[in-house]
C-alpha cells in the first residue's frame, strides 16, 4: 500500500520469491530447454498493524504459505523488503541482531503431528526457545514458565512429562502454541493452524488464539484457505492468486462487498449452511500452472469480465481508502 501507516508492525514491500525449477544443466543442453522459474510470490505489498489479525487466503499453489515462510525467515526473498517494527530484516546481518529480531516472532504450523519432535518430552519442546534465547536464569525458572505456558493454553503442567504421541491433534496444536509463546513474541505467523483439525477442535483452537491475542496483545498473520475461519478471525484480509495479491480489504467489507472477480468467485464457492436453496454457480476452470502463468492478469482465463486489456497487461494495485485492488475492470468502472 502506498501510504505507510504509523502503527504498522510489519510492512511488506514488493516481496518476491522465485524458485528455479529447471532440470539439470546437462538435460537442459541436450533437450535444448530454457531455465524454468516458478514465481511463487511475485511482488506483493501489505501491512499489518499492531494487535490486528491479517489473513491471506487463496487456493493451493497461490503462494500464501511461501509468504509465511518468507516473513519468518525460512526462505530468503528474491526481491523486496520485509520491515518489522521499522527495521528491515535483511539488514540484521549479525547473529546477535537477527536473534534479537527472531525472538519477537514465532510460527505455528499446520500439521501438529509433524511439527513436534516425537522423541522430546513436551516440557523440552516448549522450553527450547526459552533456553535458546536465554530467557530464564535456571532450570527451576524454565520449569515454572513451561508450567505457566501449559496452563495458559488450557493444559495441565503435568502434561509436560509426556510425549507428543500421547496427545490428540487439538492438544498437540495447543502445545505448538505454547512453544510459540515461550519466547514472548509479539507477532505470530499461523500457517493453516486448524486445517488438520476436526471442527469441534478447530473452534477450541480459534477461541484460544483469540483469547491469547487479547491477553498478550499479539499480532497475527493468518494463512488459510477456509473463508469461514478467516471471516471469524481477521481484521484485514488479502486475497492471493498465483503469487500476487488481488484484493486487500477489511474483513467485513470484503465479505459484504467483494470487488475483485476472484474474491467474488471464492465467496461464491462457500457451501451454504443456511440451506437457502441458493444455486451456486460453480466456477469454470482451474488454477493455471504457476510455472507458466497466463499473460496479463493471471485470472483472466477464468474471469467473466476479462477483455483484451486484461489479457495483455498486468493490473497495477490501486490503493483505495481502506485497502487495495488489482483489477482493470474495477479500475475502469466496468465492475
Amino acid at each position, binding site marked *: 500500500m502506498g501510504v505507510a501507516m504509523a502503527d504498522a508492525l510489519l510492512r511488506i514491500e514488493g516481496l518476491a520469491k522465485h524458485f528455479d525449477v529447471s532440470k539439470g544443466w546437462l538435460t537442459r543442453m541436450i533437450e535444448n530447454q530454457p531455465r524454468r522459474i516458478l514465481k511463487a510470490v511475485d511482488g506483493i505489498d501489505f501491512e499489518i498493524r499492531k494487535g490486528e489479525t491479517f489473513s491471506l487466503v487463496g487456493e493451493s499453489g497461490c503462494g500464501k504459505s511461501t509468504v509465511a515462510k518468507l516473513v519468518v525467515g525460512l526462505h530468503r526473498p528474491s526481491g523486496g523488503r520485509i520491515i518489522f517494527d521499522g527495521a528491515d530484516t535483511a539488514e540484521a546481518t549479525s547473529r546477535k541482531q537477527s536473534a534479537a529480531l527472531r525472538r519477537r516472532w514465532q510460527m505455528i504450523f499446520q500439521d501438529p503431528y509433524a511439527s513436534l519432535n516425537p522423541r522430546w518430552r513436551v516440557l523440552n519442546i516448549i522450553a527450547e526457545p526459552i533456553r535458546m534465547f536465554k530467557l530464564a536464569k535456571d532450570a527451576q525458572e524454565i520449569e515454572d514458565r513451561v508450567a505457566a505456558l501449559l496452563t495458559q493454553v488450557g493444559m495441565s503442567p503435568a502434561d509436560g512429562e509426556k510425549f507428543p504421541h500421547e496427545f490428540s491433534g487439538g492438544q498437540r496444536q495447543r502445545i505448538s502454541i505454547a512453544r510459540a509463546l515461550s519466547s514472548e513474541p509479539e507477532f505470530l505467523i499461523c500457517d493453516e493452524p486448524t486445517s488438520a483439525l476436526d*471442527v*469441534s477442535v478447530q*473452534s477450541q483452537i480459534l477461541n484460544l488464539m483469540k483469547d491469547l491475542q487479547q491477553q498478550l496483545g499479539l499480532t497475527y498473520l493468518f494463512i488459510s484457505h477456509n473463508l469461514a475461519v478467516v471471516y*471469524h478471525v481477521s481484521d484485514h484480509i488479502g486475497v492471493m492468486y498465483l503469487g500476487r495479491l488481488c484484493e486487500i480489504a477489511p474483513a467485513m467489507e470484503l465479505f459484504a462487498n467483494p470487488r475483485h472477480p476472484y474474491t467474488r468467485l471464492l465467496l461464491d464457492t462457500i*457451501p*451454504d449452511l443456511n440451506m437457502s436453496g441458493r444455486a*451456486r454457480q460453480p466456477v469454470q476452470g482451474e*488454477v493455471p500452472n504457476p510455472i507458466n502463468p497466463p499473460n496479463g492478469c493471471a485470472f483472466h482465463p477464468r474471469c467473466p469480465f476479462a477483455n483484451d486489456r486484461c489479457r495483455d497487461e498486468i493490473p497495477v494495485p490501486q490503493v483505495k481508502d481502506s485497502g487495495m485492488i488489482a483489477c482493470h475492470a474495477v479500475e475502469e468502472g466496468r465492475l
Partner: protein
Amino acid sequence: MALLEVKNLRVEFPTRRGTLLAINDISFSIDQGEVLGVVGESGAGKSLTGAAIIGLLEPPGRIAGGEIWLEGQRIDGLDYKAMSSIRGARIGAIFQDPLTSLNPLYTIGRQLTETIIVHSGMSKKAALARTIELLAEVGIPAPDQRIDSYPHEFSGGMRQRVVIALALCANPGLIIADEPTTALDVSIQAQIIALLKHLCRNHGTAVMLITHDMGVIAETADRVAVMYAGRIAEIGPVREVIQHAQHPYTMGLMDSIPIIGHDVERLRQINGAMPRLNEIPNGCAFSPRCPRAMDRCFVDRPELMPTEQSGQAACWLFGEGNSDGGGDG
C-alpha cells in the same frame, strides 16, 4: 424395499492389547436414488462403515456382527470372487485422493474401457465409445483426445472427474463416496459436488456421501447420519439435522462451525475430544463432554429413539418418561 440395509453392524480390530470395537452396532438404510450423508470427526467410524459395505476392510479389521443387504441380497461375508462381481457393478466407489484410485501406468481410456468390458461384456469398440460418452458427461473437454492421457497429465479436479466416470461406468445402484472433495480446492470442490449431484440424479444412483464437511452435506444430501465414536448419534432429513439438531453432539458440532455473516466474538466449543477406541466410556460415549448429561447417560447406552421431529437420536433426552426432550438447547 430399501436399496441398502445395514443392520446392527459391528466392526472390530483385534490387537495385541485386546479387541477394539470401531463400529458398534449401527443400523441404517439407503433408498433408491437417495443421497445419505455420513458426517463425523476423524475416527468416528464413517469411512470404516463404507469400507465394510463394499468389502474393503483392511485386515485385521473384520465384520464382527450384523448384516448388510443390497437389493434383497445379503452381501456381508461373501467370498472374494462374489464380492468382486458386486464391487464396481452394483456398488461404485469414489475415494478422497484421485491419484491413488487411478493406476498411474495405464491411460485413463484403458482403465475405463477395461472396467466397462469386465462388467458389461461389451465389445471393445462399443466400450470405447461408451468411455468417450462418459468422459464427456463428467465434463472432460475433448474426451476423444484425452482417453490416451495418463492420470498424471490431469489436474486434481479433472482426475476426480475421471474417478466419477469410473464409478458410474457400470451403472451401479449405489456409490460410496468417501471424502470425494477433501483433497480439492474450494472452487473445484463446488464443481465436483455439482457434478456428482447432477449425475446421480440423472442415473437414479443412490450415494453414501462420507465427509467431515457439513457444508457439503447441506448442499448434497437428502438425509444425514451423524457418527460419534463408532455409533450413529443422530439420523434424519438433512434440513432438520442441520437447522434443528436434536442430539447435544450435533448441536455442539453445528455451533462450532464458523459461519460467514454470524459475528461472534467466540465460537461455541465442545470441550474435550472424541475418546480413543480403547477408552470409550460406559453408557453414552458422548456423556463426558455433554452439557446435558444425566446420571443415566453414564450407565446405559442409548439406542436411536424418535425425536420430536421426523429423525432419530441416540440420546436419553428422548427416552421414555423424560419431559425434558427436544428443543434446541
